[in-house]
C-alpha cells in the first residue's frame, strides 16, 4: 500500500497535470449553443476556467444528450442524490480506492511535516453554477463563519476537530488557502477525500452569506417573512449547509459546483426529482468536451424497493446499485437482463465481514454478564456454527468462512483475528460450555446458568434486513444444538437500536463496517469506539464521554493506540499501531463473524457508457459518485 503513503506522508503534494493544451478548443453540449449565441451564457472556454480538471473517460469519449433515470426509495433518501451526484470534494479518492488521492476541486495540496497545516491550490477561473467565481474565500467562509456557528453547526464534524479544537484558515490568494490546527490531525487527508470532505466546498459565500445577520442586517427579517423560525433555519432551507441535509436538494437557486443542478426539488410528497446540466461545470474530457455528457437527471421516488426493482426489470432505470442490488434479487435481475436491456456490473464490498454477531459484554443481568464475558462462551458459540452451510444457504457459496477482521490484502489484515475459532466443531463447543459451568441441563434439555437458573439467550436481528434475520434464525438452531437456549427475536429497526444502545440486548446480528482504508475512520468493530460497537456499548459510551462503564485496561490500551494513530501521518506507523490494536481485539475475541464480505453489484443499462467494472464501494467511498458520473454517457 505504497500509495497510501503518498496521500498521507508529510510534505508531499500532488499537483494537477497541465491542461493548457485544450484551453483554446473546448466544446460544449449542443443544448447550450443557442444560449451562448444569444448571449445568455458566456463562451465555453470562459465557463470552464483556465485549468479545468481533465477526466480520462473510462472507455471512450462520449456523446452529449439524454436523461439519466434513477430511483430513490422510502422517506428521505437524500443520500441517494449525495452518493450519485454530490461527491465533489477538494481532493478525491481514485475510483479503485487504492488510498491514492487525486486532485478534484483543488488542483493540489501540501501537508506540513507535523500534519498541522494543509495548503490547497484552487483552479484559476473556476465558477459556480450561477457563473460567479469560486475562490478560497468560499472555503474560508465555511471555516470561519459557518462551522463555528452554534445554530448552523451545533455539533461539529469529528474529523474537523482535534481534541475539540476547530481549524483556522488563512487565505493567501483567491486560489490558495491553508487550513491549520495547533495539534496534528493525522487523518485529515483521508477524511477530506471521503464523502465528508464535500463539506469544505459546498457553500457559495456570495449567495449563502445573505442569510446571515453578520453579512445582511435584514437576514432575520427575511427569515421571518419566509416563514422560518430564525435566520439559521432559513439559511439551512436555502443553502443546505450540511452535506447530508435534505435541503441541499431543494433550492434551484443555490449555486453549486456539481455537474447537475436541481430543477424539481426533493420535497416530502415529491414523486420525481429532476436535475439539469450545470453549464459552468469545470471538468472536461480528454478531447476538450465540457462535461457532463448527460443533459438531465430524472429520479423517481419509490415507496418500496420492490417497485424500484420492477422498474429496473422493465428497463426504466439506467443505473441502480443502492436499493435493489443485493444477493436476494440477483437471480431475478440476472434473468431479466435481456428484456430490461441492462447488464450486471460487479462491485467490490470492502467491509470486514458479511455480518457481525455481537455478544453483549455489558449485559445488565449479572448472571448473563458473567457468562457473556467469558471468552470461552463466545468461542463455543463460534465453534457451534457451520459457516460453510450458512454461506451456502444465504449467499450461494460466495464468501469464505472468516471472523470479523480487516480484509486480506490490506496492510491491516490480522490473520489470527480473521481465522481463529472458525472450525465447525460441535464437540469442542460442548466441551467449552461444560467447562465454564454450563454443564447442568434443565427440564427442556437446555443448559442452565451456573447458578441453576434457566439461561435464555435472545438473538436479535432486524426483520427489514432480510439476510441478517435469516442468519439469526439459522444461528439459533446451531446454538440450540449445543444446548444453549437461544431464541430468535425479530425486531423493527428502531426497537433494535433502542435496545442495543441501552445495552439491553443479549446477542445482536448486524452488518460489519470497515475493512479497508476506512478502518481508521470507523474502527467500531475492533474496539469499543462508538455506540455502534454492539459488543460493548457501555465501554464505548465511556470512551466518547457519554457516561457508560469504565472498561478493563486492555480496552484503554486500544484507545491509547488509536490516539497515537490519529496523531501521526506516517502510514506505516499507523498500520503498525493498528496491528497492535487488532492483536488485543484477537485476544479478546469481541465479535463473531461468519464469512468474508459478499460483493455487491450495480445494474447498468446497456445504453450507458463509461461505467467501470469491479470498483470498490462503501459509504465513505460512494458508488457511483467516485466513478466520475459526469463522464457516463448514452450510446444512443
Amino acid at each position, binding site marked *: 500500500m505504497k500509495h497510501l503513503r503518498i496521500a498521507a506522508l508529510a510534505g508531499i503534494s500532488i499537483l494537477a497535470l497541465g491542461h493548457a493544451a485544450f484551453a483554446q478548443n473546448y466544446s460544449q453540449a449542443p443544448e447550450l449553443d443557442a444560449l451562448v449565441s444569444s448571449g445568455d451564457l458566456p463562451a465555453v472556454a470562459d465557463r470552464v476556467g483556465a485549468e479545468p480538471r481533465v477526466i480520462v473517460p473510462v472507455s471512450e469519449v462520449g456523446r452529449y444528450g439524454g436523461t439519466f433515470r434513477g430511483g430513490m426509495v422510502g422517506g428521505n433518501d437524500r443520500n441517494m442524490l449525495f452518493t450519485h451526484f454530490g461527491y465533489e470534494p477538494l481532493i478525491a479518492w481514485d475510483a479503485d480506492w487504492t488510498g491514492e488521492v487525486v486532485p478534484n476541486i483543488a488542483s493540489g495540496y501540501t501537508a506540513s511535516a507535523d500534519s498541522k497545516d494543509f495548503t490547497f491550490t484552487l483552479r484559476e477561473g473556476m465558477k459556480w453554477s450561477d457563473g460567479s467565481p469560486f475562490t478560497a474565500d468560499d472555503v474560508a467562509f465555511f471555516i470561519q463563519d459557518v462551522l463555528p456557528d452554534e445554530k448552523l453547526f451545533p455539533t461539529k464534524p469529528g474529523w474537523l476537530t482535534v481534541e475539540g479544537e476547530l481549524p483556522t484558515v488563512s487565505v493567501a490568494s483567491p486560489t490558495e488557502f491553508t487550513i491549520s490546527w495547533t495539534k496534528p490531525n493525522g487523518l485529515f487527508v483521508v477524511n477530506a477525500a471521503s464523502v465528508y470532505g464535500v463539506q469544505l466546498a459546498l457553500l457559495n459565500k456570495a449567495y449563502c452569506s445573505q442569510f446571515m445577520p453578520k453579512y445582511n442586517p435584514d437576514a432575520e427579517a427575511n427569515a421571518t417573512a419566509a416563514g422560518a423560525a430564525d435566520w439559521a433555519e432559513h439559511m439551512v432551507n436555502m443553502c443546505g449547509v450540511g452535506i447530508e441535509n435534505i435541503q441541499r436538494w431543494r433550492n434551484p437557486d443555490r449555486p453549486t459546483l456539481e455537474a447537475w443542478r436541481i430543477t424539481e426539488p426533493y420535497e416530502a410528497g415529491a414523486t420525481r426529482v429532476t436535475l439539469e446540466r450545470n453549464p459552468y461545470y469545470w471538468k472536461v474530457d480528454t478531447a476538450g468536451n465540457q462535461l457532463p455528457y448527460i443533459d438531465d437527471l430524472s429520479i423517481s421516488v419509490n415507496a418500496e424497493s420492490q417497485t424500484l426493482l420492477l422498474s429496473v426489470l422493465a428497463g426504466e432505470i439506467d443505473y441502480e446499485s443502492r436499493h435493489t442490488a443485493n444477493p436476494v*434479487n440477483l437471480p431475478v*435481475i*440476472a434473468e431479466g437482463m435481456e428484456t430490461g436491456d441492462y447488464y450486471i456490473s460487479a462491485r467490490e464490498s470492502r467491509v470486514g465481514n458479511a455480518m457481525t454477531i455481537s455478544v453483549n459484554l455489558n449485559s445488565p443481568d449479572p448472571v448473563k454478564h458473567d457468562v457473556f464475558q467469558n471468552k470461552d462462551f463466545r468461542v463455543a458459540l463460534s465453534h457451534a456454527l457451520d459457516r460453510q452451510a450458512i454461506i451456502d*444457504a444465504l449467499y*450461494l457459496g460466495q464468501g469464505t468462512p472468516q471472523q470479523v477482521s480487516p480484509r486480506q490484502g490490506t496492510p491491516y489484515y490480522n490473520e489470527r483475528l480473521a481465522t481463529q475459532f472458525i472450525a465447525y466443531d460441535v464437540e469442542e463447543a460442548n466441551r467449552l460450555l461444560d467447562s465454564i459451568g454450563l454443564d447442568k441441563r434443565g427440564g427442556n434439555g437446555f443448559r442452565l446458568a451456573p447458578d441453576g437458573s434457566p439461561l435464555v439467550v*435472545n438473538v436479535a436481528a432486524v*426483520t427489514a434486513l432480510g439476510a441478517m434475520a435469516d442468519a439469526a*434464525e*439459522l444461528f439459533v438452531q446451531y446454538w440450540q444444538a449445543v444446548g444453549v437456549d437461544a431464541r430468535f427475536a425479530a425486531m423493527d429497526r428502531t426497537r433494535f437500536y433502542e435496545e442495543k444502545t441501552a445495552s439491553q440486548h443479549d446477542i445482536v446480528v448486524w452488518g460489519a463496517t470497515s475493512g479497508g482504508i476506512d478502518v481508521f475512520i470507523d474502527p467500531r468493530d475492533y474496539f469499543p469506539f462508538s455506540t455502534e460497537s454492539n459488543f460493548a456499548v457501555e465501554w464505548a459510551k465511556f470512551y466518547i464521554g457519554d457516561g457508560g462503564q469504565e472498561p478493563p485496561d486492555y480496552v484503554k490500551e486500544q484507545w491509547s493506540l488509536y490516539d497515537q494513530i490519529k496523531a501521526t501521518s506516517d502510514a506505516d506507523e499507523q498500520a503498525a499501531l493498528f496491528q497492535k490494536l487488532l492483536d488485543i481485539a484477537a485476544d479478546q475475541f469481541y465479535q463473531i463473524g461468519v464469512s468474508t464480505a459478499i460483493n455487491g453489484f450495480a445494474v447498468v443499462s446497456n445504453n450507458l457508457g463509461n461505467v467501470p467494472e469491479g470498483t470498490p464501494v462503501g459509504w465513505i467511498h460512494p458508488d457511483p459518485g467516485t466513478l466520475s458520473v459526469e463522464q457516463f454517457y448514452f450510446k444512443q
Partner: protein
Amino acid sequence: MTLEAPLPHQDDDLLDRQLNAGQLQAAGQWTMVWNKFRKHKLAVVSLFVVALIYFVALLAEFLAPYDPGKFDPRYTYVPPQSIGWFVDDGAGGQSFQPHVIGFDIKLDPVSFRRIFTPDPTQVIPIGFFVPGQSYKMWGLFDMNLHFIGPLDPSQPFFLAGGDRLGRDLLSRTIHGTRISMSIGLVGVGLSLLIGMILGGISGYRGGMVDRVIQRVIEFIRSVPTIPLWLGLAAAMPKDWPPLQVYFAILIILSLIGWTEIARVVRGRFLSLRTDDFVIAARLDGVSEFRLIMRHMMPSLYSHIIAAITLAIPNMILAETSLSFLGLGLQPPIVSWGVLLQDTQNLRAITQAPWLFVPGACVVLAVLALNFLGDGVRDAADPYAK
C-alpha cells in the same frame, strides 16, 4: 318468522317448560335447518373443507414432514416434487413404491442461483407413518411419527417446494394453518360476544346509552387499524414469549372487530323495536334482557351468521396483511401471513411461484368459510321457502 312471532301471548315460563320438556318442536327446527343446509351443495362441500383445514391445524406436527424451521442449504428455492407411485422393479415390470424424484443440482455462475434438474435415476422412496424428526405433539408427548415422509430422512422431500433457506414449504404451511385458523376462530368468538351485547343494548335502548356506545364505536372505527397495530406491536414487552404475543394480537384484532357486529345488530334493532311483536312482548311485561335475548335476537340470527362468516375470513386476512407489512406476527412464529412476506419479493413471482401456496390456502380457507356461512345463513331460517 321464528318461534316467537306466532306465540306472543303465551306465558314465557310455560314456553320454557315446554321447550325443556321437548314438547314443542325445538329439536325439529334443527333437523329442518340441517335438511335445508344439505340442499346447498357448495356449503356441504365447504363444511368438509373447513373441517379438513381445522383437522390439519389440530394435527400439524404429525401431518407435516418436518419441523417448520428445519433448513437445508443445498435446497434453497427448490421446486416442488410430485409423488410417483410405481417404480421399475428391474425386471421390466412395475412395482408399487411411492417415491419422489431427486435433483441434479448445478450452480448458475451468472445469477448465483441453483438450477434443479429432476434426475429420474434418483428415486427417493417415501412412506406413510414414517419415523422422522422428533417433536412434541401438542407440546405434550414426544413423538417422531410423520404422516408422510422420505424413508431415508436425509433425502430431499419437498412436495410444495422450498423457500429461500431451503425450508420445506409444505411443513411450514401446515404449521401456519394452526396459527392462522385459530386466530380467526378465537378472534371472532371474542368479537361476537362483545358485539352482540353492546350492539343489542345500543339498538334496543336507544337514547343516551345508544349515543355513548355509538360514540365508542365511532371512535374505535375511526382509528386507522394499521397505525394502531404498529404502535401496539412496538409497545409489546420484548420478553413476551411468541405465544403471548400471538394472544395479544388476537385480542387487539377482536377489540376492533366487535364494532362491525355491534353495528349490524344495532341497525336491525333500531327498526325492530317498533315491530308489533316486540311492543306486544314489552307490554306483556317481559324483562328487557329476556326480550333482547329470546325475542329479538332470534330474528337476527341470519344477520349474525352472515356477519360471522364474513368476520372469520376478515380476521385471517387481517393477520395476513399485517404480517405481510411486518407488523403482525414475526418469525420464528409461522403463520400464513408470515409465509406470504416472502411473496413481497419479485423473485417469488418470476422464479418461485410455489411460494404463493400459503396464499392459495388463505383463499381456500376464506372461500370455504364463506360458502359454509352462506349455507348456514340460508338454512338458519328453515320456515322460509
